[in-house]
């Protein structure tokens, strides 16, 4: 059997959890799809789906095999991609944070294509900590990382900063005020990028929140803004407009995001990307050169030490 093709069918059915919909996506009829899944199950010797009760569900072995299947299919695709290029031009493998705005990534790709048309950009969405690992292992050539980050052997490009605002559900009472103080967020839960992915930024942000009177009862992890839309959490981020969400600046700019490119081996392509990234982030993401951090004033009131 063509194992890779069968794995592709398996992945689509696992994503749809509906044989009819999966068949439509694959451009085939449902009976042959069902048959092929059955054949794959025979080949592997496990049941991948639980088809009882008019509902398709992944079995436990199915869930375990799904991530492996995705990796195998991804590697095969990459093999074909490299073969297609046949050595013409080079590929620059770039890591970018998964929460980078789509428009910013698009601008980045466009700017790099303009400055280095002979190099093909292969971006992958990877959090900072994983980028550091990927750079060390050589699976990416250059990354776009969030500071603070420290790793031996890494060289960083120009650091750009951006004051973050707060994202709230439209129904939040604070959505109606001009600007929000961190302390005003007291009692709310916070959505942040995963701890393993952005340890430095997360620690920095949570310390600043605590210092300014906001100790979130729970810190949720993820890049999707569903919890914010639901009014169950708030998040920090650059100004954005999304239906159902409100963005408000934070009084005193306490939370800033600092990003730069990072690499281990300097190549012309890495240098070009680094320059293009700094330019694009300033132009289309509203980032600025890192200046001296503003000193926060702490007003003195007699009751503070009485």
């Amino acid at each position, binding site marked *: 059997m063509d194992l890779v093709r069968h794995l592709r069918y398996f992945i689509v059915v696992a994503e749809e959890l509906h044989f009819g919909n999966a068949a439509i996506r694959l451009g085939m009829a449902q009976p042959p799809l069902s048959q092929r899944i059955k054949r794959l199950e025979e080949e592997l010797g496990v049941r991948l789906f639980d088809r009882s009760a008019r509902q398709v569900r992944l079995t436990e072995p199915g869930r375990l095999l799904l991530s492996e299947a995705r990796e195998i299919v991804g590697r095969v695709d990459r093999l074909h991609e490299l073969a297609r290029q046949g050595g013409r031009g080079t590929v620059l493998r770039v890591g970018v944070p998964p929460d980078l705005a789509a428009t910013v990534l698009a601008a980045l790709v466009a700017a790099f294509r303009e400055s280095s048309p002979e190099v093909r950009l292969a971006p992958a969405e990877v959090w900072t900590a994983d980028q550091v690992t990927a750079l060390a292992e050589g699976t990416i050539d250059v990354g776009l990382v969030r500071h603070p980050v420290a790793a031996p052997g890494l060289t960083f490009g120009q650091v750009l900063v951006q004051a973050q605002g707060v994202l709230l559900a439209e129904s939040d009472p604070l959505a109606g005020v001009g600007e929000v103080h961190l302390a005003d967020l007291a009692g709310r839960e916070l959505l942040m990028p995963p701890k393993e992915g952005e340890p430095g930024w997360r620690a920095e942000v949570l310390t600043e929140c*605590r210092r300014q*009177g906001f100790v979130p009862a729970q810190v949720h992890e993820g890049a999707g803004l569903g919890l914010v839309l639901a009014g169950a959490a708030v998040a920090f981020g650059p100004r954005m407009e999304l239906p159902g969400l409100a963005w408000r600046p934070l009084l005193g700019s306490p939370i800033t995001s600092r990003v730069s490119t990072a690499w281990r081996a300097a190549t012309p392509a890495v240098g070009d990307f680094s320059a293009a990234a700094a330019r694009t982030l300033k132009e289309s993401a509203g980032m600025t050169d890192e200046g001296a951090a503003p000193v926060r004033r*702490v007003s003195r009131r007699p*009751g503070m030490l*009485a």
Partner: protein
Amino acid sequence: MSTPAFDQLFRAAGVTGWLYAADVDTGHDVGHGADEPMPTASMFKVPLLVALCRRADAGLLDLTERVTVTAADRVGGPTGLSSMLDDVTISLRDLAYLMIALSDNTAADKLLGRVGFEAINTMLDTFGLEGTRVVQGSGEMLGSMDVDTGHAWPFVDPDDIARLSVLDPSRTNRSTPREMVRLFGMIWRDEAASPESCAWMRGVLNMQVWPHRMASGFPYDDVAVSGKTGTMPTLRCETGVVEYPDGGRYAVSVFTRSFSTALNQPRADAVIGTAARMAVDHLRR
């Protein structure tokens, strides 16, 4: 009757809290971590006040004696003589008033120089308050924070807070909610010193200026709240006596440590009043 849900109340205000309250006359009481050793911050000024009065009662000093406070006496602080610029000549009892009503650090250390640690701690032993100790003056406490953190005020970094010895009851002035309440009960029952001295101490404690903590829980013209606060980064406390129009008197001590290191936390101040009110309501049922 079940104990009020103090834990929930404190958590909603972003703090951990310890509390003890007792009817001054019947001893009927309620507690929440009542025997936890806690740093007392500026509340150490109350045992100092009592020891001062006992020395005056014993004829060892005259409270109307006038002393001059100079630049050399001045220690840091946001109120009273600590914030003034010029030398002041003032009686010992007016120094005591400033120390209690405004939590004046300079006034406290000047009086501490006259009374001494030994007299205070011996007195506390006599009272059976072995968990209450006075081992540092205000200037020493403030100075230790600069040494512990390596920098000057403000102290808002969580790492700095973890290093502060003034927040460690084994290295600074200390007590427990129960012992603070017992000390206040003795002042209100004329047991801490002579009846005249106790009456004067009650008057001074009643003139404390801060309305945002214990007093905020009793917003009634016919309820009197007397007390003394204590504040250090993340630590807010107050011990006082609440007197009801029907003659009921209740000594209450509340200590809190906030999760946030922010200096301005009105909710953390107010919960001291709310918790005290809950405790007194419980005792009056």
